[in-house]
C-alpha cells in the first residue's frame, strides 16, 4: 500500500491558509535561538484532490460494520445508527470548551447528568463516573477505587491480591497489575464457570477483590453468581464486574442485584457507539454505596433546574481524565438509550442471545463446541480436528474470502484454537444463515481442499501477511532516504 508520502510533489498544498502580516523572520526571532526549529518535519506535500483520493482509497481497503457481518466475539460489533453521528457533531457540542464556567456549559452537563442517571438505573447501582475513556480505563479506575477503599480502611498492604478467572479478558489482569495488585488466576470448571472450590481456597484476608466478566468470555452466565459475590464479600473483598458483555442481559437483569460493587460499561459495545478503527470509546463506571465517596472528581450534581460540579470529595481518588471523559461518545449513547427505551433495550438482549444460540446449534455438529450449553450473546467453538494441519487462523482467513469479518480467534485462552462468535442483534436472519453456510462449507473444504484454507485469503486486498517479519525486521515509520 503506498502511503500518503508516496503521493504529491514538493510545494503542493491542500489548503488555502491566510498570509502573515509580519515577517516570518521577525516572528521566529521571538523564540530563543536554541529552541527554534532548524529542520522542517517531513510531512506530506499533497494537493486536496490527491489527499481525498488517498484516504478514500484506504477506506476501501477496510472492512467495517457498514461493510458486512462482523462477528468479532467480545467486541459487540453492532450497527451504529447514523442519527447519532449527526447529533455528536452538533456545533453546540463540538464547539464547547470544557473549562468554561458552570453557567456556560449547562447543556453539556445535562447530557452527562441524564446519561449518568440512566446508566445507574441500568446497573442498579447508586454511584457513577463517566470519566474513563475506554473499558480498560474503567477497569483501572475500578482498581484504583478498590485500592483507595482499603487504604482508607487501613487494610493495605495486606489486601494485595485480585482473583481472576482464567477466562478473563487480557485487560483485566493487566489493569489489576497496573494498579499494583497481585493477580491470582482461578480455574474454570467443566461447565465453563468459576470453580467454586478453587475460589474458596483462595479467599483469605489478603483478597482485595475479584474481577468477573458477566456473562463470562465463553458467553456463559455464571449460574453461581450470587454465591460467588457472597463468598467474596464474606472474605472482605470487593466484586468488580467487567460489563463489556452487557448486551447479553440489557433490560433484564442488573449487576447491582448480583452483588457487584463496581461495574464498567463499554459504551462502544452495548450502546452502539462506533469503534472508530480502534477507538475512541467510553468506559463509565458504576459503583455500590460504600465506594461512592472514592469516585473521581468532579461529581455532576443537579440543583433544581441547574447543574453544578462538586469538587468537594475529600476521599476521592482524584481525576482519571483531564476533563469529563469522551463526551461525544456519551451523546451517542444517550441518543441510543432514548430511542430504545426500556422495551427496546429488552429487545436488544433477546435478539442478541437468540442469534448467538441459533448459530451455536447450527454449527456445533460440524465444529467442536467445548462448552455445550445455553449461551448468552456469544459462544466459543474450537477449530481443532477439522483436518490435517488446519488451524483456526486458516478458518478465519478463509471466512474473509466468503465476505465476512472473522470472529475473534485464540481467545479465550482456555479453549484451544478458539473461535469466538458474537453475532449481535442487528443482523438479519438471512445473513446469519449465509454465515453458517460459509462455516459449513469451510469445514468441508478443510477435508477436501485444505490448501484453499492454508492459502487464504484469496480475494482480499492483500494475501496473508507475514506478521513475524514485522517484528524481525521492524519498519515502524517511513524510512526516508538518507535516514
Amino acid at each position, binding site marked *: 500500500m503506498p502511503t*500518503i*508520502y508516496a503521493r504529491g510533489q514538493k510545494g503542493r498544498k*491542500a489548503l488555502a*491558509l491566510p498570509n502573515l502580516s509580519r515577517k516570518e523572520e521577525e516572528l*521566529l526571532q*521571538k523564540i*530563543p535561538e536554541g*529552541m527554534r*526549529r532548524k529542520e522542517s518535519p517531513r510531512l506530506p*506535500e499533497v494537493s486536496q484532490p490527491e489527499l481525498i483520493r488517498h484516504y478514500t482509497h484506504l*477506506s*476501501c481497503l477496510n472492512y467495517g460494520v*457498514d461493510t458486512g457481518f462482523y462477528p468479532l466475539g467480545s467486541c459487540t460489533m453492532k*450497527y451504529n445508527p447514523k442519527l447519532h453521528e449527526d*447529533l455528536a457533531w*452538533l456545533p*453546540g*457540542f463540538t464547539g*464547547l*470548551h*470544557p473549562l*468554561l464556567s458552570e453557567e*456556560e456549559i449547562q447543556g*453539556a452537563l445535562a447530557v452527562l447528568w441524564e446519561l449518568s442517571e440512566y446508566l445507574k438505573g*441500568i446497573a*442498579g447501582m447508586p454511584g457513577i463516573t463517566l470519566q474513563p475513556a475506554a473499558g*480498560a480505563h474503567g477497569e483501572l479506575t475500578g482498581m484504583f477505587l478498590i485500592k483507595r477503599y482499603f487504604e482508607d480502611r487501613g487494610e493495605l498492604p495486606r489486601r494485595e491480591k485480585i482473583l481472576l478467572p482464567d477466562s478473563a479478558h487480557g485487560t483485566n489482569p493487566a489493569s*489489576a497489575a497496573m494498579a*499494583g495488585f497481585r493477580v491470582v488466576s482461578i480455574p474454570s470448571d467443566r461447565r465453563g464457570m468459576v470453580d467454586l472450590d478453587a475460589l474458596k481456597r483462595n479467599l483469605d484476608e489478603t483478597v482485595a477483590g475479584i474481577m468477573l466478566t458477566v456473562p463470562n468470555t465463553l458467553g456463559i452466565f455464571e*449460574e453461581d453468581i450470587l454465591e460467588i459475590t457472597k463468598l467474596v464479600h464474606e472474605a472482605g473483598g470487593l466484586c468488580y464486574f467487567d460489563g463489556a458483555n452487557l448486551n447479553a442481559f440489557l433490560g*433484564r*437483569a442488573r449487576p447491582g442485584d448480583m452483588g457487584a460493587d463496581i461495574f464498567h460499561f463499554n459504551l462502544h459495545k452495548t450502546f452502539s457507539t462506533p*469503534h*472508530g478503527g*480502534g*477507538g*475512541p470509546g467510553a468506559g463509565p463506571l458504576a459503583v455500590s454505596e460504600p465506594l461512592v465517596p472514592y469516585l473521581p472528581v468532579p461529581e455532576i450534581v443537579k440543583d433544581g433546574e441547574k447543574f453544578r460540579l462538586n469538587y468537594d470529595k475529600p476521599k476521592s481518588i482524584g*481525576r*482519571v481524565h*483531564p476533563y469529563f471523559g469522551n*463526551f461525544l461518545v456519551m451523546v451517542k449513547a444517550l441518543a441510543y438509550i432514548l*430511542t430504545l427505551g*426500556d422495551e427496546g433495550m429488552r429487545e*436488544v438482549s433477546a*435478539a442478541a*442471545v437468540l442469534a448467538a*444460540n*441459533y448459530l451455536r446449534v*447450527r454449527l456445533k455438529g460440524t465444529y467442536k463446541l467445548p462448552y455445550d450449553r*445455553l449461551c448468552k450473546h456469544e459462544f466459543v467453538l474450537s477449530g481443532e480436528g477439522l483436518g490435517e494441519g488446519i488451524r483456526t487462523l486458516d478458518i478465519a482467513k478463509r471466512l474473509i474470502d466468503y465476505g465476512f*469479518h472473522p470472529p475473534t480467534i485464540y481467545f479465550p485462552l482456555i479453549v484451544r484454537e478458539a473461535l469466538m462468535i458474537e453475532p449481535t442483534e*442487528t443482523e438479519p*436472519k438471512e445473513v446469519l444463515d449465509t454465515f453458517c453456510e460459509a462455516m459449513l462449507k469451510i469445514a468441508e473444504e478443510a477435508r477436501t481442499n485444505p490448501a484453499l484454507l492454508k492459502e487464504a485469503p484469496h480475494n482480499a486486498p*492483500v*494475501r*496473508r*501477511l507475514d506478521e513475524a*517479519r514485522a517484528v524481525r525486521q521492524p*519498519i*515502524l515509520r517511513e524510512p526516508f532516504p538518507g535516514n
Partner: protein
Amino acid sequence: MNPYIPHTRRDIEEMLSAVGLPDVEALFSDIPEEVRRRFQPLGLPPRDEIWVHRYITGLSQRSTGTKLIPFLGAGLYDHYVPPVVGHVLSRSEFYTAYTPYQPEISQGTLTWMFEYQTMVCELTGMEVANASMYDGATALAEAVYMARRTVGGKAVLVPKSLNPNVREVLATYVWAAGLELVDVPYDEQGQLTLSEIPEDTCALIVQEPNFFGVVEDLSSLKERLGKAFLIVYVNPIALGVLEPPGKFGADVVVGEGQVLGLPLSFGGPLLGIFATKMEYLRRMPGRVSGRTVDAEGKEGYVMAFQTREQHIRREEATSNICTNSALCALAATVYLAALGPEGLKRIALLSMERAHDLAERIFSLPGFRPAFSGPFLYEFAVSFSEAERAVRKLREAGIAVAGPALLEKCGVKNAFLVAVTEKRTPEELDLFVRSLSSLAGKE
C-alpha cells in the same frame, strides 16, 4: 422491534425452534430467578427519531458557552478544522471498523496508522511512536509508568507550570503506583528551575510550551538527569516552530493531539500522543503498525510487537490499553497531511502573530503586565490587580479566557491566561482590548 433489529416474528419463531426453546424468556433461564425478579426498568418509553433529534439538539443549544469568542486555551485550543478532516472521518469503512486484528481486511487502518506514526516521529524528533493513547494526560501517566519500569526510582519531578488538569490525572496514577510527585519551581520568566535532582528520581516532566505559554529551554536537562527519564509533554502545533524534544535527548515525548484537527468537544474524545526511543520499543504501551509483505511479496501492514500487549501478555503487559483513540489519530494524520510542513509552521506563526499583536496592546494598557517575562508563542498570562473583574468584563463583551482560579492552582495570583489561534480576527482583538481599556490604570 427497535429500528436496529431486523428480525421478523417468523425469523424469531424459526430461530427459537432451531434452538429448541419455547420462547424468548427461556433464553435467560440461566440467570438466577431472584436476580431477574429484582429487575426494575427505567420507566422510559421508546422515542421516534424526530423526537430524539429535537431533544438532543435542544440540549446542545443550552450551553451558552459556544457563543463566546474563545481566547480560552489552557490545554485545548480552538484551531481551524479543515473540512477535509471531517469528510475522511465520516467514511464508515474507517469508523465502523475496530482494532485491525485481521490485517488483510484492515489495510486502510493499518496504513494510516503507519503514516501517523511517521508524522509523530517527525514532529517530536523521536524514533518510534504508537498509534495513540486516550489523551495527553493518560499518555503522560503511562510514560511515567514506563520510566519506573525502566529505571526504577520513586520521585517524579513535576514543574508547577504543568497544566493543572493534567497534573491531577498524573497525581492519581502516581499515588496508585506508590510514587511521589516532587514540585519543581519556576522563576520570574515562568521557566522551570531545576536545582538539585533527588537520588531516587524516576523522571522529570517538562511541558513545552508550559501551562503559562512560556517556552522552556530543554537543553542540558537530560545530561543532568542521567538515566532518569526526561519526559516532554508537548503541544504538537508548537512543534511547527520549536526544536523537537528528541534533539535534547528526551526519552519519551507525549502530548495532547486535540489541536491536530479535532474540535474542542467539551474535552473528549482527545488524542494521546506517545513517542519514544527505539531502545524502549518493547516497553512502550499501545498499538503499533509495522510494514511487512504478504505471501506474494506485496507490501502491507500488520500490528507489530503485540507481545507487549494485554491480549497476549496479560498481567505482564506494558499497559492495559486496548481501545485507544484511533479515529482521532486519523484526524491528526489527515490534518497534518493537509497542512504539510509549511502549513503547520504557518498555523503556529499565524497564531503567534495574533497573540503578540494582542499582548503588545494589552500590555500597553496601564496596570496590565505580563505575568512572566519568558518567551511565549500564542498563549500568555496577564497580571492585573483585579483579575477576576477583568475576566468578568471580558465575559460581558462575549469573550472567554482562562480565569484566575486555574492559574492559582499553579501558584500564580491575580492573573488570567489568554490563548490566540489563527481563527481570531482583528475585530475580535479590538473588542478584547476595548473591553479591558475601561479598567486600565486601576492598580
